[in-house]
Structure formats: C-alpha cells, structure tokens
C-alpha cells in the first residue's frame, strides 16, 4: 500500500500536467464523481425539500419550517415515533433471541440435524419480505388465517387466538424474517472467539452456565449490541410489514407514513421529506454506533485463525428439545409460508385447506399470471435493472476499492464513507429523495426505468464496496508491483492482474446484487410509473386488488426462481472458495 501511494505521488510529481490525464486519473475522477453524484445529491435534495413548500406552476418554493412544525407538534407524530421504536425494538430483540439461540445450538452443542442449519443463510434471500408477510397473513389473519381456524376447530370455539394485524403480529413476522440474519452474525461472533478462552474457564472449574455467563457472554457483548443495533435499523427501515400489517390495523410507523403522505392527494412531499429526514437521523445514529462497536469488537474477540472447533457441549436428552425447537422454527419460517402460498396458488378462489377444496385444485392462477398484461414487461424490467445495476456497481466499486485499499491518496477515507453512505438510507427514504431530486433536476429520467436504475445503483453501492474490499485486501501488493516491474502500465496492470484476481469476489457480489435488486420493493414503490413496473410492484398491485391466488402463483414462481439464483451463487462461492460476506 505504501508503494502505491508513493507511486501515484511520484507520477504526479515528476510528470507534466498532461500526464495526470492518463487512464488512471480519468478513471479515478469518474468513479469519485459517480459516487458523489449518487450518494450525496439525493440527500441534499431531501434535506432541502423538508425546509421548502412544494413548487407548483403558480408558486415558487418558499422556505418554511412548516413541515417540521406540522410533524413535530402533532400528537400523531409522537405516536408514530413511539410505534416505530416499539416495532423496531421488539423485532430486533425477538430476532436476536431466536437467532442467538440457533447460533449457540449450531456452534456449541451437539444438536441433531446440524447440517440443515446452512439453510438459514439462504432463506431470507429466497423469500422476499412481501411474500413472507402475505403468507403470514394467510396463516395468521383473524378471519381466514389457517392457524386460527385450525385451533378454533380443535378447541371448538370462535376465539381468535392469533391476530396478525397488531403490533405483536408485526413484531412476530418482522422478527422471524430477520432471525436468520441474527443467526449469521452471532454464528460469526461465536466462531471468532478463541475456544481456549472458554476451555480455560472450564478447566478453572467453572460450570457450563458460569462459562456462558462470565466468558462467552462478556466476550460477545460488543457483537451482541452491534447485532441488536443492525436488527433495529433494518426493522425501522422495513416497509412491507408495516404497510401490509400495520396500516389495516391503524398502526403507523415512519415508513408507512411516508408512503401515505406521498399517495395522498395532493401529495405532501414536504411532510414526507420531514419524516424521511427524521428516520434517516435514527438509522444514521444506529449504523454509526454499530460500526463503532464492530471495529471495537476486534479488541474483544481473539482470532487465532487456527480453526480449532470447540468441543460441543453434550446436551444429553435435552438435545431432542433443541432439535424440536429447530424443526418448529424451520416450519414457521420456510415450510408453512411456502406451503400456504403453494396451496393458495392452486385455488380458483382463496379457500382454507380442506378435503373439499382439495378437489378443486386448478392451475388457473398460473394461467392468469402468464396472461397478465404487465407481467412480461415487469419481468423484463426486473431482469434488465438487476443485471445492469449489478454490472455497473461491481465495475465501479472495483476502482473505488482499489483507491481505498491500495493507495494512500488523501481523502480516500471520505470516498469510502461516501460510497457506504447509502447504507443508512431506508429504501423508501432513498426512493423519496431520488424522486424529489429528479422532480427538480429535470434531465428526463423521471418516470422512466433510468430513475429506478439510479435508485438501485445508489442503494446497492455499499454491497459492491463490501465484496470488492474483501477480495481487494486479499491481493498481495507484490502481485501488482511485479507487473509494474515487468513493464506493465497502470491500465494494463488493472485489467490483466487486478480484475482477473478480483473476479471470484466480483462474480459472487454480482449475483448477490442481482438477487437483492430483483426483489426490491420499498424504493421502487415511489419511483415506478405505468410501464416501468418491476416484479415486486406487480405483487404489490395484486395485493392491493385483492387477487390473492394470482399473487400466490406469481410468488411461488418468484421464490423458485430466486432459489435457483441463490443456488447458483452458492455454487460459485464454493467453487472459488469465497466466504459469504
């Protein structure tokens, strides 16, 4: 790294001004401009809009504190704030408890079926939040929910056991959906801990609970807090659950309020921007604290790299209990949601599973979906958007990561932070900011696919950075230096040495971005217009129209397609020996 900086400084110092315009500097300049444009401009316009009245044909925008006054003096906002916090905190804690228990079972005990735990890594990628929420409505709604009906049948009552349209229902669905993420982070935390720390406590005479309390818990504490924070941020940003479950029950949170403010007539963009800024502040604090904790965490966790797996605790007969817990969990998170969608997709009109309904199985919903007018277009749009977004991001971030990892250019930390900035944007706030930006900055992208592409590029830029940084760090600087000594120019070295070596990480990151962007909803929902729908928007529209069986058919096909994509990603990662980022 040292050398690269010297190199760049050296070429700068020695060569004439015209030499600075060579390929390297041009590429660096373009990449920096790209990042600044994508991640900073929408933020500025969002802030600006929150302080101005909407511009109309007859009236120019004027400065106002009215938006904030409306937002912060209303008792609704207090309720909104309280609801958001309660929802996010509840979901985070629930997801964390479930995820940590699973991680502990997998890493530290002899629970059976351990080989199935890998499935937890891919479930959240395969089942998009909107489909997960819809399937839980089919399972837990007070009127048609299968769980309620089954329990009512068993106990022969009309009592509603489980109402999904409630704060607890929201927390249940959201927490369940994020529990695999908690599982993955806590697994990493357990793994990064030197097992000899626990073993030496055991040898000092501590029993299993004392070890867990005084050593394991204390050592993983930064990881625990960081995990809780990230889950909190994810939940408070989430749009699908609050929109589908909260709004019918009159439970408003920030994300659903932003959506409503925009979809009112006339739309209250200023008020939405105010909510957006507030939400952004909360997520920024959360992400900041989380990154502080994570960097501090390395002080606690001691990576030995020796790969000694700790001796698993023998749970004895209790292992049947943990296995049962795991099986029940798999049922709740994959089997039931998928089966209920599958069931519903084979009905002409939605009906609860029964012997009668079994005779009425039909493929009509699938036929409907294939003849649905916007379906071909939306699939095409989704594919086009996700492929181009993934390609552009991986290429641009490879240059950015080269700058931040391999050079000592002044200001490279700023570039890194700017490129990671979109991470704090909740999807719907990003959609809002980009919508505002291109309403005022009229370059003809508003209402086209381009605006959605720009939004996706911004939203998933941090993923590209993460994947490329990881692989860039693994490229020994001497591989580059030896190319220079062989007489290769910078462009040649980048193209012939760096890019091929980055390839495995780039391919993995590329597929990952394809997967996450093809299911994107919360940003697209504010930016699409007729003709530029994507798949998740069609699902959303079908839901709004009450076409449940058709939605289920589309959902089942979507899940299967995502499953194939994720398997492909796993295969690529395995082939190139990449660890999941």
């Amino acid at each position, binding site marked *: 790294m040292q050398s690269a900086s010297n190199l760049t400084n050296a070429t700068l110092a020695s060569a004439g001004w015209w030499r600075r315009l060579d390929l390297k500097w041009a590429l660096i300049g373009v990449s920096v401009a790209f990042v600044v444009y994508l991640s900073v401009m929408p933020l500025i316009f969002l802030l600006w809009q929150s302080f101005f009245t909407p511009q109309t044909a007859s009236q120019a925008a004027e400065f106002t504190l009215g938006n904030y006054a409306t937002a912060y003096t209303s008792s609704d906002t207090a309720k909104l704030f309280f609801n958001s916090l309660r929802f996010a905190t509840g979901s985070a804690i629930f997801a964390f408890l479930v995820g940590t228990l699973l991680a502990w079972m997998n890493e530290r005990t002899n629970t059976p079926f351990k080989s199935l735990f890998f499935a937890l890594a891919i479930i959240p990628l395969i089942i998009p939040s909107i489909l997960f929420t819809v399937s839980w409505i089919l399972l837990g709604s007070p009127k048609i929910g299968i769980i309620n009906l089954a329990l009512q049948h068993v106990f022969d009552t009309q009592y509603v056991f489980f109402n999904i349209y409630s704060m607890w229902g929201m927390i249940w669905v959201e927490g369940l959906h994020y529990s695999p993420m908690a599982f993955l982070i806590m697994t990493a935390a357990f793994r990064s801990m030197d097992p000899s720390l626990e073993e030496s406590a055991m040898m000092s005479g501590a029993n299993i609970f004392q070890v867990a309390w005084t050593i394991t818990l204390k050592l993983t504490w930064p990881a625990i807090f960081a995990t809780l924070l990230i889950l909190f941020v994810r939940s408070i940003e989430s749009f699908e659950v609050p929109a589908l479950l909260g709004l019918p029950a009159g439970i408003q949170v920030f994300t659903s309020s932003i959506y409503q403010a925009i979809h009112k007539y006339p739309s209250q963009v200023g008020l939405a921007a105010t909510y957006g800024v507030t939400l952004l502040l909360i997520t920024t604090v959360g992400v900041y604290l989380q990154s502080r904790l994570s960097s501090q965490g390395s002080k606690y966790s001691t990576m030995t790299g020796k790969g000694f797996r700790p001796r698993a605790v023998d749970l004895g007969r209790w292992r049947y209990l943990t296995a049962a817990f795991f099986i029940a969990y798999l049922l709740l998170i994959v089997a039931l949601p998928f089966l209920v969608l599958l069931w519903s997709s084979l009905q002409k009109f939605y009906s609860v599973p029964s012997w009668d309904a079994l005779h009425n199985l039909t493929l009509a919903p699938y036929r409907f979906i294939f003849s649905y007018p916007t379906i071909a277009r939306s699939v095409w749009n989704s594919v086009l958007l996700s492929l181009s977004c993934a390609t552009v991001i991986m290429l641009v971030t490879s240059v950015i990561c080269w700058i931040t990892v391999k050079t000592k250019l002044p200001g490279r930390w700023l570039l890194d932070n700017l490129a990671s900035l979109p991470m704090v944007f909740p999807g719907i706030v990003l959609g809002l900011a980009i919508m505002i930006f291109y309403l005022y900055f009229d370059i003809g992208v508003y209402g086209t696919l381009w605006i959605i592409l720009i939004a996706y590029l911004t939203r998933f830029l941090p993923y590209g950075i993460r994947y490329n940084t990881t692989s860039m760090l693994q490229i020994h600087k001497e591989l580059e230096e030896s190319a220079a000594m*062989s007489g*290769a120019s910078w462009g040649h070295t980048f193209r012939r040495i760096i890019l*091929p070596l980055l390839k495995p990480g780039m391919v993995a990151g590329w597929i990952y971005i394809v997967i996450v962007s093809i299911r994107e909803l919360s940003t697209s929902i504010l930016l699409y217009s007729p003709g530029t729908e994507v798949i998740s928007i069609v699902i959303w529209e079908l839901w709004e129209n009450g076409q449940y069986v058709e939605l289920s058919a589309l959902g089942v096909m979507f899940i299967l397609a995502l499953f194939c994509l994720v398997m492909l990603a796993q295969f690529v990662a395995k082939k190139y020996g990449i660890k999941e980022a």
Partner: protein
Amino acid sequence: MLKVEGLHTEYVDERGHSVKAAHNVSFEVPEGKLFTLLGPSGCGKTTTLRSIAGLEKPVSGEVSVNGRVVYSSAKGIFVAPNKRNFGMVFQSYAIWPHMNVFQNAAFPLKVGSRKLGKGEVHEKVMRVLKAVGLDHLADREATKLSGGQQQRLALARALVMEPQLWLLDEPLSNLDAKLRERMRFELKRLQRDLNLTTVFVTHDQNEALALSHEIAVMNEGRIVQIGSPRDIYERPHNRFVADFVGSANFLDATVTAREEQRDYFVAQTALGPLKCYSVDPLQAGDKVVISLRPEDVHLSAAHPNMPNVWEAVVDSKIFLGDHVEFQVKIGDVVLLSRVHPSFFPADGTSVYLGMQPAKCLAIAAN
C-alpha cells in the same frame, strides 16, 4: 553500472508520523556483479531496493544505471517502475494465480512498449523456462507449483525481459532449509552464467556470504560496512557487523602495547593480557572490543602450542551433528566455542582453550 548516491527515504507509518528508513545510502555495483544488502529486519535494506526499483520514491538522492538516471531529486527525475526495465523477484514470488506458468513468464514481453511476435515470445519464454528447469511445466497452473518451482518461475519472469538490473528481495526466505541451500547454488549459477548485475536483499548472513561479490551491511538505515564476503566476515569494522555476520565472542579490552610484528597488539582483557590483531593503527590506552568467532576458540585436552592459552571449565554443550558447541568458563567469563564432534569432554571437565592472535580481532569501541 548501478550507482546509488546519497539515498534518503522516509515513509509514513500507521499513525501518520514520518519515519526515516534509509540515510545517505551510497554504493556502486559493477557490471555483472552480485551486490548484497544485508541487515536485520527494519534496517532499510528492502526500502533501498524498492527505491532502486522505483516502487518507492526516495526523499533525496540519485540512482543511475549505465549512466541513465532513473531517479534524481536534484534534477527532478523519476522514471516510473514500468519504464525502468529492471527485473525483480519478490519475497512472496508474486506469481499471478490466474495465469499458467507460460503466461506468467510471458507477461513482461506482452506489456509495455515491447512488441514481439508470437514466435519470438514463445522462444524467449521457453529459453528462460529451460534455464530455470521449468520448460516441461509450461502449461501447468501456476498455483499447482511447489514452493521451489514458484521460486524458479519468479526468477524466470524477472529474466525474460533481459533486464538491465536484477533485483532480488529475500527470494529464498520462504523456502525450507534444504531447498534454500539448493536454490542458493542455482541462483548463483544463473547470475554468474548470464552475467547479470544484481542487487540482492537478505537478512541471512550465510546466504549473503555464499552468493555475493560484495556485501553492504546495513543497520538503522545506514550502510555500516561494504566489503567482500571474506572482508566482512574476517575484518568486521565494528561490533554490530561482527555480531550480525556470524556469531562472535566479545571481550572488552584496553590496548597496552604494540607487538613487534606489524598490526599485532597486546590488550588487557578480563582474562588477562591477550595478543590480538587490528588493521587500525591502535595506540596504548585505546579502548577496544576483541571479536572472536566460536570456530576460532580451540579446545583441547593437552596444552596447545600457541599464544593466548587459558585453562577453562566446560559449562554446557550442544551436539549439532557436524560440530559441537561448548560454553566454557574462565573465571566469570563465558566463551562460545565450536569444535569437531570427536572432542567431547563431560561437563565440568577442565580443558585448554587457545586463540590464534590473528583471529582475535580488535575493533575500536565506540
């Protein structure tokens, strides 16, 4: 051929402080010679090599090859490393894992301004691969090579462009001991056969002694002594060189008299008066350090016929196969001695210890 003058380098450490790495480093390497920079880690030898390569930019100084200035702070010249036409072998070998053996070696011929035909490239690459004994593995994946083969490929890649200068950055340090000794011979043969002007960096004194025409011992960013391997080993200018190049016994001493024979002196040590040798014109009263190699501390059961003989007690010993290392005590003074394994007295035995005056090197204490 290579001329390095007044090289100063600095680098910025993780905390942002600038640290001086090399101070006023100057040396010349004649055509076809192998010049070694030897020193402990952090002495500035690698920085010096990388400054010659152009991978780091020095603060001041001048580097020229065959009269072509590639770096000069005074004239404001800095030639980018890819324009210098120097071959370099890295410590990690830096074999590109996404190319096979042939592609790795052919890379230098396919980049930069060289425009060669396919046949010419093939011929040149196969020639260097043959020279390092890898021609039969040309199509193999580079990652499937053993450590020694990767090493040879790195050497070949640095040769294929027919470099003006060959730069080797601790190329043998990643090999196991057996292989390292074999590669040492191969490296020497290649360098001598092709008459390559070479700068070699190592912290291994045996390697330096075995390969070099000339050695520069570096410490704390400065060259402390330049000389032939024999000079460096037998006539160290100071205690650091004596200690770093081979192990040495040291005795603090004060010169008491000059011997009749030229360059020989008598010095008072903790053992008593000792006949010693020095190229420096010493005066009576000068403080010196007597440096003595363990192999020059002779042990015997009978009184040997030489000056500088003491009676000593065996304190401990280590059997090392081809020799035995003894720690012997004369009063409180402990000396290290290396003798043939045929001599193997028990611990606590009294033995005679003799030191040839020519091997007792008096170095001015500083």
